[in-house]
């Protein structure tokens, strides 16, 4: 397993002169291996966004180090490292630079000086990977939010990144757009073994992850598989996070006296349990 990204005791404060002020990120450590999908969850102000800025080199840690491909991120290798990171931001409109879909996908390629013939091939290929190849010449205002985010993913893929970072990428989309984007990311993972880091406060999105990092007040509160994390139950609710729909449903059903085996995180599990619950009687 190759390590793609790691945080080693990273701390960052927006007001470093004031030692009493709470740090935005406090002593956080974790690492992501190739092919993993990690989700960072937490409510507003938990330090999620600061962590994204630390990964992409928009901020540098005051303590500890951020490593991408085992290299410590510094001002010197910043641009080289950025070319290995693909990022998709929250607002689909505000990250669309090009006049048309293909121009936008080519933007990062242009920046790194990829020759023209190479660019055409990569643009077409990455648009096909997100199933947007029919929209080559479309202008952004004729696309839905989900489609724009898929274009943004294609723009990131064109650079053949080592890791794709989704920074609240689905939070401004309607449910349909959200499913579109998440399906695309899942398919890409299976296809090309993409490593994914998603920052989200949407628990349903976090369920897709292999591991969840639960942030609270700038500290890593817990880390584990979705099952382990959501087993914390009411603790999460206390910190302002919702439980997955199926889990809430299970709890409500149990409180009404329906016999269910354990807690269910996905709708499918719950449904399966429900329709088989009377078999053994």
């Amino acid at each position, binding site marked *: 397993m190759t390590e793609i990204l790691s945080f080693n005791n990273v701390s960052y404060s927006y007001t470093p002169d004031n030692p009493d002020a709470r740090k935005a990120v406090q002593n956080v450590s974790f690492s992501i291996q190739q092919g993993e999908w990690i989700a960072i969850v937490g409510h507003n102000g938990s330090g999620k966004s600061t962590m994204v800025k630390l990964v*992409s080199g*928009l901020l540098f840690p005051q303590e500890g180090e951020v490593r991408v491909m085992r290299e410590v991120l510094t001002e010197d290798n910043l*641009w080289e490292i*950025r*070319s290995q*990171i693909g*990022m998709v*931001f929250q*607002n689909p*409109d*505000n*990250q*669309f*630079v*090009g*006049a*048309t879909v*293909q*121009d936008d996908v*080519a*933007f*990062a*390629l*242009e*920046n*790194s*000086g*990829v*020759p*023209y013939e190479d*660019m*055409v091939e990569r*643009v077409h290929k990455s648009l096909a990977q997100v199933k947007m190849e029919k929209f080559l010449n479309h*202008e*952004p*205002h004729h696309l839905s939010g989900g489609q724009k985010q898929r274009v943004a993913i294609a*723009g990131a893929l064109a*650079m053949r990144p080592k890791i794709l970072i989704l920074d609240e990428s689905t939070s401004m989309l309607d449910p349909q757009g959200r499913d579109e984007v998440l399906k695309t990311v899942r398919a890409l993972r299976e296809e090309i073994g993409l490593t994914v880091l998603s920052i989200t406060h949407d628990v349903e999105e976090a369920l897709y992850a292999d591991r969840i990092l639960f942030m609270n007040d700038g500290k890593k509160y817990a880390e584990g598989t979705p099952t382990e994390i959501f087993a914390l139950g009411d603790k999460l609710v206390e910190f302002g996070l919702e439980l997955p729909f199926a889990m809430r449903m299970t709890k409500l059903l149990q409180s009404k006296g329906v016999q269910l085996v354990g807690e269910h995180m996905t709708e499918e599990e719950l449904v399966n349990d429900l329709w088989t619950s009377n078999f053994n009687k």
Partner: protein
Amino acid sequence: MMEKMIFGRFIPSDSFVHKMDPRSKLLFVFAFIVVVFLANNVVTYALLLAFTLFVILMSKIRLYFLINGLKPVIILLVFTFMIHILFTREGDIIFQLGFLKVYEEGLRQGIFISIRFLVLVFMTSILTLTTSPISITDGLETLLNPLKKMKLPVHELALMMSIALRFIPTLMDETDKIMKAQMARGSDLSAGPLKDRIKAVVPLLVPLFVSAFKRAEDLATAMEVRGYRGGEGRTRYRQLKWDWRDTTGLVLLAAVTILLVGLRN
């Protein structure tokens, strides 16, 4: 109102003119603006008019559409025509009504100036109607490239222009949304005296500016993360191709220029 305006609008098609390279079209129009001033008699003006009509024909844009869209300009045209009729006093009097005297030279000058004005407006409209804004930007960027030596930030200007163009529909949608939101809270943008209406625009502009700045900041971050470091070492995805159409266009213009020089007084 907006549908009729044709300034800055782009009508996609596959005509000869549409397929020309933006660089040759820009050069053509700039040269044409100068060439127009060579005409000074009936034959040369007729030639200019004929050439313009030919270009319109080649662009497959309907003349009716063009004239209809230029209505606001026509008022200006009539105005300059009238000024010439009334104030030029040379040649024979060909018409008299009370103290108003129309001289032959006045009529001639009036017609000439109108034709000059008309062909200029037609040609520049053809440019914007047949070239997408982004191609015009690309064309301008390449044409202005030599000015980089004079420290003119050509690439940055072109990028600014293309981003501005890209955000026009986005900001239009936003304006619409804010307008509806303010209307829902009882603001009235269309009635009352002018002073009140201007005042009603303020609560529309403030949120629009705030969100535009927010967008700009987001966009800057996204661009930086995607490796944007200015024009140095950048390659271009939109390639400009100069083909036989472009050479033909410019050769035609050169031929017209030579004819004009030969035929003028």
